[in-house]
């Protein structure tokens, strides 16, 4: 009996080992329905899609994403094109930039769909303290130049897309009309007599663009912070149910007006315009990966980004389906 017991447990372990090998193979193989994925695993450059720029790649690449719809969809697109060029690409999602960035600098994650201005400020704050003057600019070329100067030598940014997404604050349209509020300054004036509840992700009370920014730049009176999520369903529920009067959303969202929400004008320019830009490990700054990710950036204009977000959040494609279809329609 003793022998049988030992044997059976080693069999279990062996089975687990086989299963691991099996998944590793499965991760490298095609994903559902995507044309890009059909080419995955093939490294013969004659079969490679045009977006690889004639180069082919190999080896494991981990694409990280923040846990909100737009970022997950962009990461799915990145995975699709990287697989298309022969990389063994996979994806993991994280709660916030704070959570994934240390792993990027350690080289554990190789690619992230990033936002130029917020990333620049994030790195600047980490280096020079939270009160350091912002190095993000309204001009994307200046921002990218400053960002490149701040990045450690192990990291690089590729071409930014024309599409931007910026942090924005939304209120109920009813509320805005009733109180004649269209700008954040007007909301701040209103808040002096009616302190507000703000909804946002857990990191909001410590991030310069969020609660501290509203308080310092606009002098807004915030009585409570309702912890929700990063531009997700909880923030929307908090706003539509009236649990919070103002919430952090993104300017590229396609669903706000349908929910009876309005974005207020950022009249004191608290938020910089955030172009989407691939942050990559230096080893991927040239070659097939760079070609492919730059090809994605080239196709991402504002209308396309909004269409992608709408496809996922309103039209209910899975982010994988939408990503596959984007690569099939726009990149082949």
């Amino acid at each position: 009996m003793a022998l049988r017991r030992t044997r059976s447990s080693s069999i279990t372990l062996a089975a687990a080992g086989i299963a691991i090998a099996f998944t590793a193979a499965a991760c490298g193989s095609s994903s559902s329905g995507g044309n890009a994925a059909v080419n995955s695993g093939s490294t013969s450059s004659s079969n490679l899609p045009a977006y690889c720029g004639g180069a082919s790649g190999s080896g494991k690449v981990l694409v990280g994403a923040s846990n909100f719809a737009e970022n997950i969809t962009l990461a799915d697109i990145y995975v699709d094109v990287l697989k298309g060029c022969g990389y063994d690409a996979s994806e993991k999602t994280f709660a916030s930039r704070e959570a994934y960035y240390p792993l990027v600098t350690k080289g554990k994650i190789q690619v992230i769909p990033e936002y130029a201005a917020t990333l620049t400020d994030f790195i600047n704050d980490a280096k020079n303290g939270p009160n350091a003057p912002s190095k993000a600019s309204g001009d994307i070329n200046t921002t990218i130049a400053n960002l490149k100067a701040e990045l450690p030598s192990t990291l690089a940014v590729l071409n930014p897309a024309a599409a931007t997404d910026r942090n924005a604050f939304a209120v109920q349209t009813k509320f805005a009309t009733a109180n004649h509020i269209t700008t954040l300054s007007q909301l701040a004036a209103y808040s002096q007599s009616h302190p507000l509840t703000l909804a946002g992700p857990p990191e909001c009370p410590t991030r310069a663009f969020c609660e501290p920014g509203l308080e310092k730049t606009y002098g807004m009176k915030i009585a409570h912070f309702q912890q929700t999520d990063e531009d997700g369903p909880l923030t929307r529920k908090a706003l539509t149910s009236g649990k919070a009067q103002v919430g952090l959303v993104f300017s590229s969202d396609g669903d706000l007006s349908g929910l009876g929400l309005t974005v207020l004008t950022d009249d004191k320019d608290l938020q910089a315009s955030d172009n989407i830009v691939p942050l990559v490990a230096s080893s991927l700054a040239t070659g097939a990966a760079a070609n492919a990710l730059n090809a994605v950036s080239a196709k991402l204009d504002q209308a396309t980004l909004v269409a992608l977000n709408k496809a996922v959040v309103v039209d209910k494609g899975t982010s994988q389906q939408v990503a596959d279809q984007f690569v099939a329609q726009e990149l082949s």
Partner: protein
Amino acid sequence: MRLPRGFTFHKQGDPWLSWHYITSNSHAILSATQTHVILTVESVALGLLVALPVAALARQREWLRSTVLNLCTAVYAIPSLAFVVAMIKIFELSSLTVVIPLASYSLVILVRNILTGLDEVDAQAVDAARGMGMSNARILIRVRLPMALPTVVAGIRLAVVSTIELVVIGGYVGQGGYGSKIFEAFSNRSHTEMTTYILLTVLLALVADGLLLALQRVITPWRRGVAA
């Protein structure tokens, strides 16, 4: 502004359940199932591997036993969310971030069951074995463990079913099989995706429970007919 061809996506419904969703996402479902099963097997196997010697040790002295049981209570008091997040600082992207907490919970279930199983072993059988001149170690291996097997397997069933449910929390840190999909569905606000993966989790637990019950009947034929 618009591209020559423009990106368009055919609008899909978002019912609470959709067979079409399952057929058109079969690859994603299969790959999430694989990850979910592997995380479960790794966690329970690791838990079992540690539980056997720990339980054997706990039987040596009364104070060891109470220490082990108190430690078990303490481990079980750590909520899964807290445990997983605490581990990510140490194991980062390794699946150990999820496996270590889940193996610990399995360990608690298994240690308790193995101890109960060994306690229930008929004293007469042990006396008989001793009369035949068996050493304590041989009695443990040849008599006590086989007799405790039904309770141990029952513990494995419980550990597997609860681990399958607990793996889902791994989705919060980006690795949870069905859990990753459930969190993705949350970000995308997709009812169909969410309910599909919740039901798959329940289904997987039921299937695993059924398989283990069958296994339990095969390896302990003398218990057949006794309620599980």
